[in-house]
């Protein structure tokens, strides 16, 4: 039998801060069974015994409405069926006791053992609120501890409440929320509201002034931050900073990490004899590690900013400001940050959807976030636009290539909004999950709490998604490396041997031959054969086997498309590989002398890359966030089908008009 303490309470009561303060870094995250709702668990030692702490999703009342709220009640009922010793620790706030006490009173009436932690007691003192803990404990008939999770005040006393007990509380008569009728829950709620009001009135002494200082200060700040003119400008500046931090702040660190890991591969290659082991380490394992690690700076920077905005109280206000404009599409203000983050990379965008409390809305956001133009698409767009949109194209006097690039960004947003609109007519649509949102008082974020929050997000990515991304990178390497077609490679290797054996080897000839060798190698590999095999599938889009192989390899990361095409066109060794590739694509001819790639091919590729979920890392992250392969499989197949259909349409239309 183990002691389980379930932290319950309304959102914004500091429940997660208390969870962090109690468990420190002894935490792990998983999902509650069968849903996308995150279950954070941790352990703490109390009186020599280990106690498991579970941070339940925020719950507003005894009438669960969203999946998150239902999960909390379901968890309690499931716990009641196990031999575990359960205690529900309800976290409440002294300034909002009337509302916050409804849950502990209702749960106690439903037969569960409950204790109360009155959090943010330091803030309550500053507000001039006086709370009589013994009076409250007597009225509620449960243990009450006054704490401040941020400063650590009162946590020792709270430990006494959490101590493992010799005898398990009798839960045989507790209400099974999974089977409870709506009527019974309404009765519990109504009785709990009345009892909570009586208990709050008897134990809290309010200051003489009518409004709490923290509230009046927040209203003063809101008059600036939500001002009709200044508000949007401040929001735009904040989002601009966030966007800049993701691109400008993370990029140098990503480049540094990438360079260092790349240098390690070069160093290792020089030490190892040429062969499969060297290739496995230098072309498979090390790039696989790189593919995981390079995302960490973006995730860390994004969640530092999100955590700061969330803890300061600005995030719900930012959501409220854009809420109105997103409602016609079946979305709300909370999707704003995930969508914006996805412009840097879909992975932090998908992870940022955790801040959305409604499960259906969260899934819709996760499904649509990859449509935002991430930074990995930029090299692909740049290559195709530079190669196929004429530099002489100047619509309305603007640079035509720049216009097409901007149009690709707009295309992603429009597609996401159109699909959101379409999803309004599916089971994924949920009427505005909450017609009202709590705007918590503005607070100065705690550096320690912020560091814990960022660490938890980074660690979850590295430990969960990272393993799969690494494994899949190895699989892709193996497909590109094997089998080795000796007959195809032998003549080039012989030529290379001649060049290398000469007294003064010609570096230019060596580079060309190594490029041809790499091209021949990939052509004969499983990936190259797969490209030829699937060529008929993509032929209607104007793609040949080379583009098909490059698109397959782009599953590792979209930008790999450029590198693979470079390898196929034997440009691997050239210093100006991208310029060379542009010329190679422009000049490539079919056997009958016609151009192999045209503007129509580029149009179909651009549209395909704008929509298709060509990124294993994102797919794995979606699986991690949703707890099953069902959503990413649905997302991949739907976006692939849509991308294929629209790429085909754009190919045919461009052919027709050009």
């Amino acid at each position, binding site marked *: 039998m183990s002691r389980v303490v379930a932290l319950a309470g309304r959102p914004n009561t500091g429940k997660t801060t208390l969870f962090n303060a109690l468990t420190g870094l002894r935490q792990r995250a998983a999902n509650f069974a069968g849903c996308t709702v995150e279950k954070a668990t941790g352990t703490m030692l109390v009186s020599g015994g280990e106690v498991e702490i579970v941070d339940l999703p925020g719950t*507003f009342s005894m009438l669960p*409405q969203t999946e998150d709220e239902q999960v909390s009640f379901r968890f309690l009922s499931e716990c009641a069926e196990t031999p575990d010793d359960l205690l529900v620790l309800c976290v409440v706030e002294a300034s909002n006791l009337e509302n916050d006490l409804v849950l502990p009173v209702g749960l106690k009436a439903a037969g569960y053992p409950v204790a109360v932690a009155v959090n943010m007691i330091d803030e309550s003192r500053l507000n001039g609120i006086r709370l009589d803990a013994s009076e409250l404990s007597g009225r509620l008939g449960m243990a009450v501890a006054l704490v401040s999770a941020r400063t650590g005040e009162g946590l020792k006393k709270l430990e006494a409440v959490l101590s493992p007990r010799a005898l398990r509380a009798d839960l045989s008569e507790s209400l099974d929320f999974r089977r409870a009728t709506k009527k019974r829950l309404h009765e519990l709620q109504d009785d709990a509201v009345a009892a909570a009001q009586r208990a709050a009135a008897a134990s809290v002494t309010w200051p003489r002034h009518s409004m709490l200082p923290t*509230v009046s200060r927040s209203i003063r700040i809101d008059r600036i931050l939500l001002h*009709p003119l200044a508000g949007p400008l401040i929001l735009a500046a904040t989002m601009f900073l966030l966007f800049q931090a993701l691109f400008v702040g993370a990029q140098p660190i990503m480049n540094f990490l990438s360079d260092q890991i790349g240098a390690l591969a070069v160093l290792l290659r020089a030490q190892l004899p040429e062969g499969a082991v060297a290739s496995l380490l230098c072309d498979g394992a090390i790039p696989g590690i790189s593919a995981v690690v390079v995302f960490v700076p973006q995730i860390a920077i994004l969640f530092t900013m999100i955590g700061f905005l969330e803890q300061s109280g600005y995030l719900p206000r930012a959501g*409220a*400001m854009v*809420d109105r404009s997103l409602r016609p599409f079946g979305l709300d203000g909370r999707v704003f940050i995930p969508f914006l983050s996805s412009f840097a990379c879909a992975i932090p965008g998908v992870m940022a959807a955790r801040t959305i409390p409604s499960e259906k809305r969260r899934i819709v956001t996760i499904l649509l976030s990859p449509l935002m133009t991430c930074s990995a698409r930029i090299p692909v767009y740049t290559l195709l636009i530079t190669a196929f949109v004429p530099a002489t194209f100047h619509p309305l006097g603007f640079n035509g290539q720049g216009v097409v690039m901007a149009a690709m960004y707009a295309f992603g947003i429009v597609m996401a909004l159109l699909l959101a609109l379409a999803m309004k007519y599916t089971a994924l649509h949920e009427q505005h999950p909450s*017609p009202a949102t709590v705007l918590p008082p503005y607070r100065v974020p705690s550096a320690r709490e912020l560091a814990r929050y960022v660490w938890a997000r980074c660690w979850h990515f590295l430990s969960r998604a990272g393993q799969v991304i690494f494994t899949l990178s190895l699989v892709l390497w193996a497909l590109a490396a094997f089998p080795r077609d000796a007959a195809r490679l032998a003549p080039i290797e012989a030529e290379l041997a001649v060049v290398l054996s000469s007294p003064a080897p010609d570096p230019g000839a060596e580079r060309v031959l190594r490029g041809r060798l790499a091209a021949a190698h990939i052509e004969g590999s499983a990936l190259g054969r797969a490209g030829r095999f699937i060529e008929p599938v993509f032929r209607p889009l104007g793609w040949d086997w080379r583009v098909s192989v490059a698109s397959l390899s782009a599953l590792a990361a979209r930008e790999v498309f450029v590198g693979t095409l470079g390898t196929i066109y034997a440009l691997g060794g050239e210093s100006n590989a991208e310029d060379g590739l542009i010329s190679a694509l422009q000049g490539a001819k079919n056997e009958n002398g016609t151009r192999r790639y045209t503007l129509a091919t580029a149009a179909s590729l651009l549209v395909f890359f704008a929509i298709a979920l060509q990124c294993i890392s994102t797919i794995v992250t979606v699986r991690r966030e949703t707890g099953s392969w069902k959503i990413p499989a649905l997302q991949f197949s739907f976006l692939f089908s849509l991308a294929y259909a629209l790429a085909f349409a754009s190919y045919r239309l461009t052919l027709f008009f050009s």
Partner: protein
Amino acid sequence: MTLDTVAMDVPVRVLGYAGLDAHDKERLAGLGLRPGVSLVKILKTPLRDPIECLVGSQLLAIEARLLSQIRVEAA
């Protein structure tokens, strides 16, 4: 009277709901917007919807469409 007819910064007391569906009613009650609670409309967000209100001792952003369905009296 209903909340949409009340001017900004005028304190009122919530009497009940008129025509709200069960989902919205339960959600608002869960948030603390229940009969008997004091309420002040503070400001309109830049797109004029939602409206920031002080409900009891907490600030809520409430969708504008709901205001005509919340019955109030002068406090």
